């Protein structure tokens, strides 16, 4: 029997880590992810895990130590947010290129500056090309479930890539909600043992990790990373199937909420999806054919699947909790429209930048987005595809 609990997103992530029982955790506190290493170090202090907890002096060292540990043949995990992830940036690329399946919880928060500790997705978007698998989570349950699935995906021999599980800072990380936990023994069995093929501590086969990779080799090594990311698609679905058999909870690349017969829809990630569902329900009650595509797997980007799922729409709004500051659309919008273009899907699309620095996202605003979409359907025109909501008039 699964265990019914009430936990915050951070508590749920820490408990998932406890059940996974990694060999090494190296972490440095940063709001709003601080609680994860706090809870976890309590598990260490009370002997509830076998983990070596390395209380490093920075996030750069957290990722460096995770790389050292994972290369040594251990399972290594960490958690961070915002500037912490930015400080790791250099090492994120080294983790993925060294093909080390490190698992990180990213509690999304605005990257400075100016300094702001609240939620948006600028941290995750800043590392979207770092070669990490990126899973997004609507709530504490999904943050927990994604972590339980993480190692099976990351450590698969056809993948061998690091993986981050994202959840919204404060909105999810600090809100207490109902959750269904899996029994410890079942998690242990599901996650399995880590058996690396090559590792530093194998006395029978000393290896060199992170060599100087000159012109004759780097290109192919980067290609191999890209191939591994493609392979991850299949593995993500296989692991989701296994997970569904264990828990009854179904996961794919994304969740389609009342999307199959929808005429207009929103594409978004993390907690905004929950708010959008309430708005969709309201509109459906009024006879408006509104729907939602909540993206779970952002890297690898499921190009064909997203394009196909949106292909029947009359208009779509892509919501970005991060701006690219390029005057040409934010990351998720660029990814979705690019996917549609390459798949010959022609749906009028509009981008909304919202929720920056923790700006509240209301049902009223999301209803406004659907109204705009109805207007686009009516006129057949997208006057300005790059829009904002929740921004004070004139941005002042």
């Amino acid at each position: 029997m699964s265990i019914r609990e009430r936990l915050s997103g951070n508590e749920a992530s820490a408990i998932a880590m406890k059940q996974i029982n990694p060999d090494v955790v190296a972490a440095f506190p940063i709001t709003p992810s601080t609680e994860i290493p706090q809870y976890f170090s309590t598990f260490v202090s009370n002997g509830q895990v076998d983990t070596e907890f390395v209380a490093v002096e920075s996030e750069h060292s957290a990722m460096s130590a995770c790389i050292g540990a994972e290369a040594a043949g251990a399972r290594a995990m960490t958690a961070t947010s915002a500037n912490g992830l930015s400080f790791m940036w250099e090492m994120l690329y080294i983790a993925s290129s060294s093909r080390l399946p490190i698992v990180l919880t990213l509690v999304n928060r605005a990257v400075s500056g100016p300094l702001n500790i609240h939620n948006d997705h600028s941290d995750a978007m800043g590392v979207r090309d770092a070669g990490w698998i990126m899973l997004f989570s609507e709530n504490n349950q999904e943050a927990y479930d994604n972590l339980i699935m993480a190692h099976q995906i990351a450590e698969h021999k056809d993948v061998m890539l690091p993986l981050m599980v994202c959840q919204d800072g404060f909105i999810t990380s600090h809100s207490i909600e109902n959750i269904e936990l899996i029994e410890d023994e079942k998690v242990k069995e599901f996650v399995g043992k880590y058996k690396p093929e090559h590792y530093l501590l194998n006395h029978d086969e000393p290896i060199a990790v992170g060599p100087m990779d000159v012109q004759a080799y780097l290109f192919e090594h980067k290609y191999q990373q890209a191939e591994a990311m493609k392979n991850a698609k299949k593995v993500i679905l296989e692991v989701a199937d296994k997970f569904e058999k264990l828990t009854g909870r179904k996961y794919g690349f994304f969740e389609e909420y009342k999307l199959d017969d929808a005429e207009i829809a929103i594409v978004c990630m993390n907690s905004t999806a929950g708010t959008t569902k309430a708005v969709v329900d309201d509109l459906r009650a009024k006879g408006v054919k509104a729907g939602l595509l909540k993206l779970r797997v952002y890297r690898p980007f499921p190009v064909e699947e997203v394009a196909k799922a949106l292909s029947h729409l009359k208009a779509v709004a892509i919501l970005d909790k991060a701006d690219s500051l390029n005057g040409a659309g934010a990351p998720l919008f660029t990814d979705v429209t690019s996917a549609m273009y390459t798949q010959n899907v022609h749906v009028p699309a509009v981008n909304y930048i919202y929720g920056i620095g923790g700006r509240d996202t209301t049902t009223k605003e999301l209803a406004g987005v659907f109204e705009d979409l109805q207007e686009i359907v009516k006129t057949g025109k997208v006057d300005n595809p790059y829009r904002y909501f929740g921004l004070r008039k004139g941005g002042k």
Partner: protein
Amino acid sequence: MAYNLKEVVANKPSRFTAGHRMCAGCGAPPVARMIMRALHENDHAVVANATGCMEVSTCIYPYTSWTDSYIHTAFECAGATCSGVEAAYKSLVKQGKLKEEDGSKTKFIAFGGDGGTYDIGIQSLSGAMERGHDMTYVCYDNGAYMNTGIQRSSATPRFADTTTSPAGSVIPGKMQSRKDLTQIMVAHHLPYVAQSIAMTNFKDLYEKAEKAIYTEGPTFLNVLAPCPRGWGYATEDLMKINKLAADTCYWPLFEVVDGVYHITYKPAKKLPIEEFLRPQKRFKHMFKPGNEWMIKAFQEEVDKRWQELLDLEEMTNKNKGGE
């Protein structure tokens, strides 16, 4: 058994092999080779290397000069990377996932240049040492960022001509004094800290390396490693330069065991600093007429630091006796 260079070289195979691409006359390879030789034969090691000359010259894909496992991640984080490897080892051994056979041990050694250690990597190093990981960090100090083309570092001595502290007509080279990293590491209260150099029969370096590697806990070695390109000496003069660094007390050889200083080499005749400066092109401008003050100032600083060291030796040994 008393140290014997011939026996060490004959009986212990090199764990840092030929074929690497370090420059002729570079001080770093003999240091790395001798430190790796200090490992006991049945023991294993994992080497962590900061980005720098040593890394880009000894591990060029698909080759490696290291017979032990080796990891390089980035410039500023050999300390943290090595600490992660050591934490993994501790965890895996504790859980019975990794077993040592026949009483053999696995040791963890990080190598970084002065750039990766004194400067960009000092936070990572300090963190790793403070956390008490069972590892040895070795700085091979060549006194500038040599890998990128001889830029000044905080280890560069005062007045040295580098590409970012060029000896110009107004500013005569680097105007700041050298950071004393070894003392910073002593301030971490480590069980073993030492400063060494590859001199004559390598005894000093070998013995300190063995002590550092086999002292439980975090240990630190700072080894001067001259650079023929950056310092401007003839490649065949490496050992001569090393000797002069020690004989002028520019680079004192000492160790600090649990806070107690022991100077391991006191030159019978302390040579004037000119002897060390003159063969090096980086100090050439100091010998121009009118620049005598520079040599004087350099000598004063060397003398001051040497006296401080003598005082520390006396003081810490007195304290020890009084316990």
